[in-house]
């Protein structure tokens, strides 16, 4: 092969890669995803860029523009005549799968008189990071109520996270918080690329398992090469293991911490199980978890509501499942419009109960 042929071949490869790349950039923006709107945050991992658009065409097909606080909510303006409830949670709360006016936060706000319900949900937010979100919004919003939106994984998985740091004194937990995870740092390295290219976002999402594996390998090598680091890690872990309280104690301590900002209520989203078309009931494991969460809530004077009955009733009333989308999975996954209607009813009832039972006082 002569040089001329190789040059021509490389030219062909380069031009084809760019042309096809541009085509897929447009295609992805139209049908699959926008460029990333994540900003690296050393405390909670990442937050959303204000006024950016969130869109994920692989589950539902909604485009929502975030407000100036980076929340999937309308622009916030403090109104002293209204009471303010902040919804704290993960992707279930953020609800990027449906148009904003159809998510349970907006629907509950419409049905409640005198309440401004603020949706502060963020995809993949760890329960223990909701404190930081609430704390950051505290000054501007002056919340009268914090509604912690939870599901089975938020208790079972999040409360047993190895990155939880527990500070205790005389066998009593003084503080619990989450150590920032290393993998979020990755976003810093790719920030320019992922904030400007949907193609890059999608490729990274596809290759994420491999990237994370490679990153952890590099981390392990670094730790191995640096004995001091290795020792510190082991020491911290062993101390944690020795004094580590159970999930109940951690969650209870966390609720107390949240209550320092504002009164707290829990909205528990229970998945459903389908035995037959007619035999639909709350999923068993999440339901058992809900009983534990309810018990802890009671001990801490926190009102609790499980959405299970609302979701089951909605299914039988409409004949359509409350979770799932045609382009992702049915009847599992995130809440669809039908599910948001059901959960909004539960949320309205929860806030009404809060008013009636005077928890806010």
């Amino acid at each position, binding site marked *: 092969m002569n040089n001329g042929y190789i040059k021509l071949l490389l030219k062909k490869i380069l031009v084809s890669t760019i042309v096809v790349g541009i085509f897929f950039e447009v295609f992805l923006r139209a049908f699959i995803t926008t460029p990333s709107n994540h900003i690296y945050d050393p405390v909670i991992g990442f937050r959303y860029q204000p006024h950016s658009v969130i869109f994920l065409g692989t589950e539902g097909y909604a485009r929502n523009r975030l407000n100036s606080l980076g929340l999937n909510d309308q622009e916030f303006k403090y109104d002293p005549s209204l009471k303010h409830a902040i919804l704290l949670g993960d992707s279930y709360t953020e609800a990027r799968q449906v148009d904003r006016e159809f998510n349970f936060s907006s629907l509950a706000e419409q049905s409640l008189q005198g309440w401004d319900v603020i949706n502060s949900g963020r995809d993949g937010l760890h329960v223990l990071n909701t404190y930081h979100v609430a704390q950051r919004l505290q000054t501007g919003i002056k919340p009268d109520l914090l509604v912690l939106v939870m599901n089975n994984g938020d208790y079972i998985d999040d409360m047993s996270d190895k990155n939880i740091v527990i500070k205790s004194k005389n066998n009593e937990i003084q503080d619990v918080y989450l150590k920032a995870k290393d993998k979020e740092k990755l976003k810093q390295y790719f920030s320019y690329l992922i904030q400007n290219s949907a193609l890059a976002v999608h490729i990274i999402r*596809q290759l994420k398992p491999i990237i994370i594996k490679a990153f952890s390998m590099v981390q392990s090598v670094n730790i191995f090469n640096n004995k001091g680091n290795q020792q510190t890690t082991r020491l911290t872990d062993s101390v944690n293991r020795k004094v580590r309280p159970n999930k109940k104690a951690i969650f209870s301590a966390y609720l107390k911490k949240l209550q320092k900002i504002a009164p707290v209520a829990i909205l528990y989203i229970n998945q459903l199980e389908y035995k037959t*078309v007619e035999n639909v009931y709350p999923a068993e494991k999440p339901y058992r978890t809900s009983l534990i969460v309810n018990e802890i809530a009671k001990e801490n004077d926190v009102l609790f509501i499980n959405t299970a009955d609302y979701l089951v009733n909605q299914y039988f009333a409409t004949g359509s499942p409350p979770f799932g989308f045609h382009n992702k999975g049915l009847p599992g996954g995130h809440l669809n419009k039908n599910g948001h209607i059901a959960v909004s009813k539960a949320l309205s009832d929860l806030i009404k109960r809060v008013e009636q039972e005077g928890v806010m006082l």
Partner: protein
Amino acid sequence: MIFTSFTFIIFFIILIVVLLISQNNTYRLYVLLTFSYIFYGWWNIYYLALIFIVSFSGWLFGKFIYNEPRKQIKKFYLSANLLISLGILSYYKYTNFFIGSINKLLEKPPVVLDILLPVGISFFTFQTLSYTIDIYREKVPICRSLAKFSLFVAFFPQLVAGPIVRASDFLPQLYHDIKFKTENCLIGAQIFLGGALQKVLIADNLSQFVDIVYQQPQIYSSLTLWLTIFAYSMQIFCDFSGYSLMAIGISRILGFSLPKNFNMPYNARSITEFWHRWHISLSLWLRDYVYISMGGNRKGVFRTQVNMFITMLLGGLWHGASWNFVIWGALHGMALGVNRFWTLFLSAKLKNIIGFKVYALCTWLITVLFVTLLWIPFRSPETETSYQIISRLFLVGDGIDWFHIQTIIILGIAVVWHIMHWANTSLLCNFPVNYDKLNRSKSVLIIIIMLYLLLLFFPINNSPFIYFQF
């Protein structure tokens, strides 16, 4: 180690480098054999002994049969080899099925022995048997080299899921030099990518829908179930055809030629034609070594029907040890019988009455529908699941409607692809999956598009090849 994995890419690169370093053809042969064993041992190192036993017994009995002048003794050697090979296959594949069925019949609690099915056992057993039977029938010359014979049995591209290669096709290739040619590498790479596209883009994406519905078919609506069975029909075709293409592509890069295993089976207009286009290497194997051995069509109409039925029943059982496969094979056997009867006595008359085009359309529709419906027992984990699906297919207005958009798009593309094949358009030359008619002038652009498609749309939880379990 599957072809679409990162591990395989590394494995293949190392193999190429080692082959390039090895100047001598004998070394290259041993390198290929060693890498084939590494490939197989990656799943379970202990089963390497198994493949070696099967290869060795095939080679040894081949030698005995070839050297033996007396017909009776030849027959004895062949029977001994059949007994060993089929005995091993039966033990690993059918023991639990046998015990389970007897226990169910006697209403005893189920007992499952801890027997792990070796990957690709059905493929390499059939391949070895074809050699000894052909030696017995004096159709192939003897292979005196154990290394060459072992490579024929264990050649890694087609070792675990076919195509089933005949000794007469493959062994002569081992007597030529193993060489890399630019032409072979380019065509091989395109065929491989075409197969990967079928597997990853079509089959794996369809499985994301099919697998969920098959877990709980009782909750979905009739329309969703129809979509599912058509999706599975396309999934199993692209999964297996994709694997075959990848195997053919890899072999081509290494300088070997493997037979075509699929030829657009859903364009068939009869069940007989379907079996000429689907898993061609297995169909031919069953025809040559089972059907013809039983007498084929030489013993009257009734015996022909019986022979076809038994052949397909065994074909069903070859796929797996389960009553679902037995039912699937039996129904295909019956359909072949009906088709034969139809072709002999009714087809010509009906063509005259309704016209050729209408006749062709009707027969195509019936064939596709029949094959698709028969995939239900094939895919179902239990007979109960098949029953649930079939009973709900015609139940209107009940159950959850799930019209998975990606599945609908993929099926749409598949329909266009089949129509293009049927119409034999020149556009097809641009699709590397149609590997007979490659268009070299656009190859760079096509390869770049394919790589983008693979990178952007491979499902994160990709599923293993369906035919690995057989």
